[in-house]
């Protein structure tokens, strides 16, 4: 009973935060655009509806594109979920995505493996390498106490330049105008889930499966429990005999594996050659998504859907009106600030808590009276 009221409050609070963030976005749109209504129309309903002659019709392809855009961000969202649950502010998800994509791509070009096993092997190798690279910030944190925040931020740049070095000096296909690798072998490509231009591959299903796996891992295994406990109260975990160091390392390596997997699945599902020349940005989006999902893996796909929808809306808005698509960063920042604000609407929470405890006391009194009588 009291829990349900709290749940309703939390949902309403989240909705209020999102509305406030969108409100901030609207203010900026109105300030910057000559045709704010047109811009808003594309931002809000453009992603899934086609508007022609005043008639709304559902745009299936566009909806599929949104689902396809969720693939890498579900993975990075899960990765951030695991790492932030252990209070490990490792921000190298960004680099891990790029590295996983690159390694996966190399395997797709140079390994000769038949049929459907090929992409699986590529993705696993990409994920493993990204997991290993996360040992750097994790071990430095555990063994030497160096802040994972700073080392992981530096790691992003290091990974980017190393990938660019190898891409340019060893693996570039010089016959192409832009710097990119040779084409993947056809066996390595992740097949499309739905044929068409949407790029919605089987990776989407894999991502959803991993949502379930990570949720089970976090809430049904002792390692997941240890990760969450360390995030809540590290000294307590230590004194109750948990292996704090090993768990911290585990959480960051899992974060790396998930990010790397997202990167390689995205590359193998969307392109037929490797062409990322800068950090792809999915790592940062993953942080927004994890915050929207309150670090709960089950909510990750919904948060990813919301962000993908918003992103698509911003793109349409910049194409068909005069508002630049970078608007999304302002909205995301506002979501970030309000959604993660513990004290946002805290007065109402206080009221609910007071009301609940009053009801509880009354119930207790009643039952006691009953006993007395």
């Amino acid at each position, binding site marked *: 009973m009291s829990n349900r009221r709290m749940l309703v409050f939390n949902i309403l609070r989240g909705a209020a935060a999102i509305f406030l963030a969108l409100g901030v976005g609207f203010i900026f749109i109105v300030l910057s655009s000559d045709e704010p209504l047109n811009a808003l129309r594309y931002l809000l309903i453009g992603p899934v509806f086609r508007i022609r002659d005043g008639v709304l019709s559902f745009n299936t392809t566009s909806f599929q594109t949104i689902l396809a855009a969720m693939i890498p961000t579900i993975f990075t969202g899960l990765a951030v979920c695991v790492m932030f649950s252990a209070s490990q502010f490792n921000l190298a998800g960004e680099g891990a995505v790029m590295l996983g994509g690159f390694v996966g791509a190399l395997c797709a070009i140079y390994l000769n493996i038949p049929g459907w096993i090929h992409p699986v092997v590529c993705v696993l190798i990409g994920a493993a390498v990204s997991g290993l690279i996360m040992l750097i910030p994790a071990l430095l944190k555990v063994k030497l106490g*160096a*802040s994972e925040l700073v080392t992981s931020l530096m790691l992003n740049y290091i990974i980017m330049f190393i990938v660019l070095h190898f891409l340019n*000096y060893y693996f570039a296909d010089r016959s192409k105008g832009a710097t990119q690798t040779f084409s993947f072998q056809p066996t390595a490509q992740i097949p499309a889930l739905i044929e068409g231009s949407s790029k919605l591959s089987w990776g989407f299903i894999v991502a959803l499966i991993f949502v379930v796996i990570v949720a089970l891992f976090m809430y049904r295994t002792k390692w997941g429990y240890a990760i969450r406990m360390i995030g809540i109260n590290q000294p307590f975990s230590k004194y109750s005999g948990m292996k704090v160091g090993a768990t911290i390392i585990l959480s960051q390596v899992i974060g790396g594996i998930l990010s790397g997997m997202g990167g390689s699945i995205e590359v193998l599902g969307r392109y037929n050659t490797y062409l990322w020349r800068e950090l792809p940005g999915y790592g940062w989006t993953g942080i927004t998504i994890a915050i929207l999902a309150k670090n709960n893996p089950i909510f990750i796909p919904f948060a990813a859907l919301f962000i993908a929808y918003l992103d698509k809306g911003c793109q349409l808005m910049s194409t068909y009106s005069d508002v630049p698509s970078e608007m999304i*960063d302002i909205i*995301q920042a506002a979501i970030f600030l309000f959604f*993660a604000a513990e004290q946002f609407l805290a007065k109402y929470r206080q009221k609910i808590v007071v009301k609940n405890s009053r009801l509880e006391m009354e119930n207790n009194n009643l039952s006691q009276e009953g006993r007395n009588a």
Partner: protein
Amino acid sequence: MFEQFLDTILKADFLFSIIRITAPILFAALGAVVAEKAGVVNIGLEGIMSISALFGVLFSYWTQSWLVGVLGALVVGVLLGLLIGFFALKLKTDIILAGIAVNMIGGGGTIFLLYMFTGMRGNTGALVSQNILIPTINIPLIKSIPILGESISGHSVLTYLAFILVFLIAGLLYKTSLGLNIRAVGENDQAAQSVGISVLRIKYIAIGISGALAGLGGAFMSMYYSQGWNSGMIAGRGFIALAAQAMGRTEPIGTMLSSLLFGFAQALRTKVSGLQGVSSYLVSLIPYVFTIVGLVLYAISTTKKVHKYRQTQAEAVEA
């Protein structure tokens, strides 16, 4: 090749570029020092630099005065610092997340803001003219000393300010009551509260100062270093500043030395990438690898110290 390498770095212009490259990192790193001393992690330095770099150019363009531009950037920096403070201290957003949010605004958000204010996309190219850039100063006497003069004289006003600020910040932290309060709050805020220090106010002040310093760093970047604003121009300098602060043990002088080390690494990168047969990408790694190695060395030295301390304690107990 090695001789060629030595030839390049043992020159006045190399020293000059080290100082020039160090300044923006130093501004932000000093900001990190002040915040960290008050127990506040300001990871938003990167974003603050980018946003105030943009506003520095805009203000100086609107008023055609570089001074107003620099002050504008400083004010924007303070406001952003206070914004992080408001969300972190008042609304209890995790301060790291609040910082990341500001970094987001500094990333894509600035492109949007630029468009909103000027209708331009991506960079401020057309707005910048020589008279709104930060002027340089030739120091009399020193100017005429060979090598030293060439490398120390002729920098911008803000470059000198960065190095002067090292000592001003040290003075602020160790010679004023505000500094004492800042350090007390950072050391143990409950103890500070119990002797009547307003912890919240001190934290706001510290993060405001931190924002101001990052704002100056931003102005330096757009109004002197790159002569104009473009997206991505900060390129991790705010993050490197955090590393410099950690490596400098959160002390102004130490932080200046570690910032100089990063300045050296960056300057080396620019020089070496001009040489034949060197991968420009691997060279670009230098500052970032320096940062991690520096942090590791620092961490090793502290763990050793703690170890030593414990040993002497144990021996004392035994005796």
